[in-house]
């Protein structure tokens, strides 16, 4: 085991994949000289050179399309979209083209591309650099959507993404980059569609991903002092969704809260709640509670951006109300 930051886990895993397979390359805005905005590819240009650590112009459609085209002919690109907010420019290339080629070719074409990006609040970047847009992508047939919450999950899911012949969107969180955790040193992968219980508990299941997992764990700690035992479960991939793990947990705890940083409407929190209602109706004491971001553009400034997305306090309140 090594203790490392989420940011360093990205760098180490990327470097490992670049060493393992010569067809892997990283492309994105300032992934080379800057080594990514957060240092997630620092030093890689020196080791691997500009053909494999490829600084792209600020041109998300070009960079994304380029990654897709190269993936059709033997390359395994990791395409980094600096902020998920910029992915709007790349979405036609991803969704209308890259994700559809396997089906349109009757299975003859594979598109082994990883789209890496980061979302969420935490850097006072306001409404065009702080969004949680994962819900849009859960609705795209053919696309895997991963949202690792820990350095260890990041390593395992990023390896799986690079080694998969399916297109994968891996969404990081800017507030997670400098969190730390234990990471196994072997070359492990984490399969898509396998949830992880981050904290076992008996009274309520809290389903959360990414930065919200940390908020849920903080809430669970507070609530433990009040005698409430929370189980925190992280689906780790939004599609495929490990429905069985969610259902198994709720059948035991008989209570469920779903937490997302994104607004609730039209999102996977509704999907998760629906799965629980459909399959745990008899066991549930009360309807599933959702704790989600406010339906607003993310405002500028520390206090305001924190005020519009869930934190441990919101989750504690929801759990207390649910169990009252």
């Amino acid at each position, binding site marked *: 085991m090594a203790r490392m930051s989420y940011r360093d886990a990205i760098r180490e895993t990327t470097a490992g994949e670049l060493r393992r397979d010569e067809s892997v*390359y990283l492309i994105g805005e300032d992934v080379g000289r800057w080594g990514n905005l957060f240092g997630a590819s620092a030093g890689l240009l020196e080791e691997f050179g500009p*053909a494999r650590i490829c600084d*792209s*112009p600020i*041109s*998300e*459609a*070009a*960079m*994304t*399309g*380029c*990654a*897709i*085209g*190269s*993936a*059709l*002919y*033997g*390359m395994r690109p990791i395409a980094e979209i600096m902020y998920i907010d910029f992915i709007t*420019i790349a979405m*036609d*290339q991803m969704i*209308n*083209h890259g994700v*559809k*080629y*396997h*089906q*349109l*070719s*009757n*299975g*003859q*074409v*594979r598109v082994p591309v990883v789209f890496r990006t980061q979302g969420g609040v935490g850097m006072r970047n306001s409404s065009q650099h702080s969004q949680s847009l994962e819900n849009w992508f859960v609705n795209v*047939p*053919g696309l*895997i959507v991963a949202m690792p919450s820990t350095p260890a999950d990041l390593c395992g899911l990023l390896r799986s993404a690079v080694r*998969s*012949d*399916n297109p994968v969107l891996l969404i990081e969180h800017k507030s997670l980059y400098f969190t730390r955790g234990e990471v196994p040193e072997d070359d492990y992968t984490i*399969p*898509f*569609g396998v949830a992880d219980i981050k904290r076992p508990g008996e009274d309520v299941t809290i389903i959360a991903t990414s930065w919200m997992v940390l908020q849920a764990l903080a809430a669970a700690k507070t609530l433990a002092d009040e005698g409430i035992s929370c189980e925190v479960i992280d689906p780790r991939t939004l599609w*495929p969704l490990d429905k069985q793990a969610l259902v198994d947990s709720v059948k035991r705890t008989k209570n469920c809260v779903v937490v997302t940083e994104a607004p609730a409407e039209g999102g996977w929190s509704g999907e998760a709640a629906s799965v629980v209602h459909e399959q745990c109706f008899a066991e549930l004491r009360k309807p599933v509670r959702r704790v989600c971001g406010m339906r607003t553009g993310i405002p500028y400034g520390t206090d305001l951006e924190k005020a519009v997305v869930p934190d441990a306090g919101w989750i504690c309140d929801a759990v207390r109300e649910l169990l009252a």
Partner: protein
Amino acid sequence: MSDNEQLMELYQQLLVLRHFDEFCYDLKMKDLIMNGFHPYSGQEAVAVGVCSLLRGDDVVFSTHRPQGHSIAKGSNTRAVFCEMLGRRGGVSQGIGGPMQWIDKPHNFFCGSIVGSGLPIAAGVALAFKRQGLDSIAVCFFGDGASNTGAFHEGMNLAAIWDLPVLYICENNQYGEAMPVQEFVPVSRISQRASAYGLNGISVDGMDVEAVLNATTDAVAQLRAGNGPVFIEMITYRFRGHYGGDPEHTYRSREEIAVWRNRDPLLLARTRLLARGFSEETLDELESNVRAEMEEDMEWALEQPFPTVEQATDHVMIPLGQD
């Protein structure tokens, strides 16, 4: 091969594309092609001239009007008829339809989002360059595509990285119903290439030999590692934007007649006659091609539709096998 033999082969391909297209038009009018058919009649010299210079390992990206490019790149006409008709046996098993299919054995891709092919073609070219191959990527698109973001982003990327992409703009004078002069502020779309340091040229896209000559140099340049290249082919579609569109709302019969006088098949035929081929030889060739296309169409019409199960085949590689 003598020039005469070469022109004869090109003419035969022009005939294949024209008769294929005209049969498709009839199928659309009978509602047997359900939707999405965009006729290629009039523009055949571009597909035939360009694709005659390509190898099997070169990759072509096309548009919502892909049938000419696909057949010229080598796609089986029966398979393309089937795709138009939504039948099993289609290039994409009848799942893609008339605007989007992939023929992997012939390295052919197309799609119906205008302008989107340019960045993807650049990516294919990047892969070839990284792998040290001399294969090239060719991207066909229309005049309308030259206003999209993907056009400019893709061409810029190909230019800054010297990627072996041949960008072929088929200026058929209309973006759907809008005349090109109304939506492009420069007199030649090839002028736009200069913004990316490229020497874009404009070529008579009705003349298959002119297309061939311009593209020959371009392909040689790209195989030598100097790219990208931008060529505007000045052409015209004889039929509507889609099969059965209200074309009287945006263009006159007189205008169409003027362009039909420069029909690429007519130009090639006149040249062949001047070079000593007989009317009888050319008529026989045309009737053979037409009969062959009719036979392919009849065959395709006998093919079954895909099953509902096939509608969800290959959405992705099953987890665990990916």
